């Protein structure tokens, strides 16, 4: 029992919802995207296109809402505590993260035996998660540039011209999907490889006991077994 306690304060309900929306939209977008690229399940084509555009729009809106909420909703800066700060601060470099990038990499490469201390989000996580909104924006942009009703708007057609036409735009859109897939692989792997408690908390708001971390002292100060 080495992990920190998983408290709901780390992932307040609004973020549980946006995370769910992300999950559902991304999976549907990937499935329908493959189907649109090449109709493996032909009868599904009409539905696939509708769902793809709809989910794309939802994902974009969800992304914007999530970013705005980061400034108004509080969440825990680290695991193992019920203390909260404005959520956006947990995305930026925190004292808890300092000098720990090397430690994380060493740990994952099995060059370091102990689990590094850190904030709710480790350094590699922060970098990759911050890329996601940017990726979503790129996907939305390239997607609208390929969608007939919007492709001729100057904002999109200028970009199409810049990258060398609709074929190039399609390839960028397609490549980016793989970036999402790769991200999801890594994300799911890292979130679950040491146990499914983070997943239970993120999706079902189910708390789980563990070590208690003091964000003021930046260190583990005890244990909350929570009846386990």
């Amino acid at each position, binding site marked *: 029992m080495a992990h920190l306690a998983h408290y709901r304060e780390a992932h307040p309900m609004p973020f549980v919802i946006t995370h769910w929306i992300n999950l559902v939209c991304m999976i549907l977008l990937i499935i329908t995207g493959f189907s649109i690229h*090449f109709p493996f399940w032909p009868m599904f084509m009409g539905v696939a296109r509708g769902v793809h555009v709809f989910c794309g729009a939802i994902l974009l809106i969800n992304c914007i809402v999530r970013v705005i909420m980061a400034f108004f909703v509080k969440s825990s800066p680290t695991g193992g505590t019920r203390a909260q700060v404005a959520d956006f601060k947990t995305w930026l470099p925190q004292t808890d993260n300092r000098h720990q990038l090397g430690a994380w990499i060493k740990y994952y490469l099995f060059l370091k035996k102990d689990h590094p201390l850190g904030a709710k989000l480790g350094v590699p996580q922060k970098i990759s998660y911050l890329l996601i909104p940017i990726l979503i924006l790129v996907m939305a942009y390239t997607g609208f540039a390929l969608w007939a009703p919007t492709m001729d708007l*100057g904002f999109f057609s200028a970009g199409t*011209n810049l990258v060398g036409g609709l074929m190039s735009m*399609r*390839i960028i859109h397609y490549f980016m999907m*793989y970036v999402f897939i790769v991200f999801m692989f890594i994300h799911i*792997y890292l979130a679950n*490889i040491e*146990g499914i408690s983070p997943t239970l908390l993120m999706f079902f708001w189910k708390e789980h006991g563990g070590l208690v971390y003091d964000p003021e002292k930046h*260190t583990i100060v005890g244990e909350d077994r929570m009846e386990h």
Partner: protein
Amino acid sequence: METEATVSEFQEMLSERGVTRRDFMKLCGAVAVAAGLTELAAPQVAQALESSVIGATKGNLYPVIWIEGASCTGCTESFAQADAPDPATVVLEMISLNYCETLSAAAGWSMEEAKEQTIEAGNYILVYEGGVLKNWGGQALRVANETGTDILVHAAEKANAVVALGSCAVNGGWMAAHPNPSNALGVQQYLKEAGVETPVINVPGCPANPEWLVAILVDVVLMQRLPALNGENKPSVIYDQTIHDNCQRRGHFENGEFVYEFGSPEEAMGYCLYPLGCRGPQTKSNCGIVRWNHRRSWCVESGAPCIGCCEANPMNPGQNWVEVNTPFYKRHRDLRVGDFVFQPGTVALIVTAVVAGALIVHGFGMKVSGRMDGGADFEKKRAWDAKHPDKSIGKYDDDDAKGGQE
């Protein structure tokens, strides 16, 4: 020919009344003479020709010069397939096609003279077919001992407008595809480099559909205006929508009814050619509406996926339809890095598979190192803190007890 039916019907009526066709013809000849047309026309032509080889410099016909650059003559050929108005009507009753390498009766110096005189008289349109070749100082194309590039600049300078006809004229077309051995580019870009400011109308397509050219000529000749152009100087009415938007097989696309193999029973049912790489969704032109060869058919109707021959960015020869669309029958083009040519999907799959594989291997590592159940034990203290006790980030309980030293 168009009067054939009426004449023969009329002929039947006449023969019922005992008038032979020959009698009828004689009568007609007499009427024409009375109208004063035929007898006068011949000397008038002779008179006009005394001062120039192009005849009258002014008249009812709009002067046009048609130059073939590095072309396959396909766009001229295509023009010969125009439906309405037909090519004869165009060259006899709409425009005075004073210079056209494929259709002109003249040859050699008198041909060049016809061009010179037309340029001098001014108020003409230049139709330019084929690519502009820059290699060897323009010598990749030589006509009348001049380079193709000089000829273009000279004819374009005084023109009212230049019609860049066909994808080659718009941005070099297939000639600009890798490795672009003759250094091909489009008319608009070349004229810009040469400082010629004559407006260019881009009409891509391989070849350009004759109805497109005829529509532009009608606009110019009968309506005295240039057609509305989009940002790439292509006529909006032709090039602002995709093939897919107006495709007769679009319904099958929506229904999810596809042709997966050439010449299959699905093709006989007219299903959608999308899985065979059809470029309709990303190629802008109205082929499916105007159709080809007297509107008899068009690519998709014949069972062939669109290969995107209208794709042409006037200012970027690299974005030519061959480079952008090959392999034609796959959904993606090939990408090229140096000599390495690959499909984007293949590379994306390989990268993803490598990542997935690495994660699986890593997972075994986690299992072996016993981290799967909650991870390894936490470090008691950050390594950095241990080395820099004076600047320590964490305030560790044991530090308090032991005075900050481990």
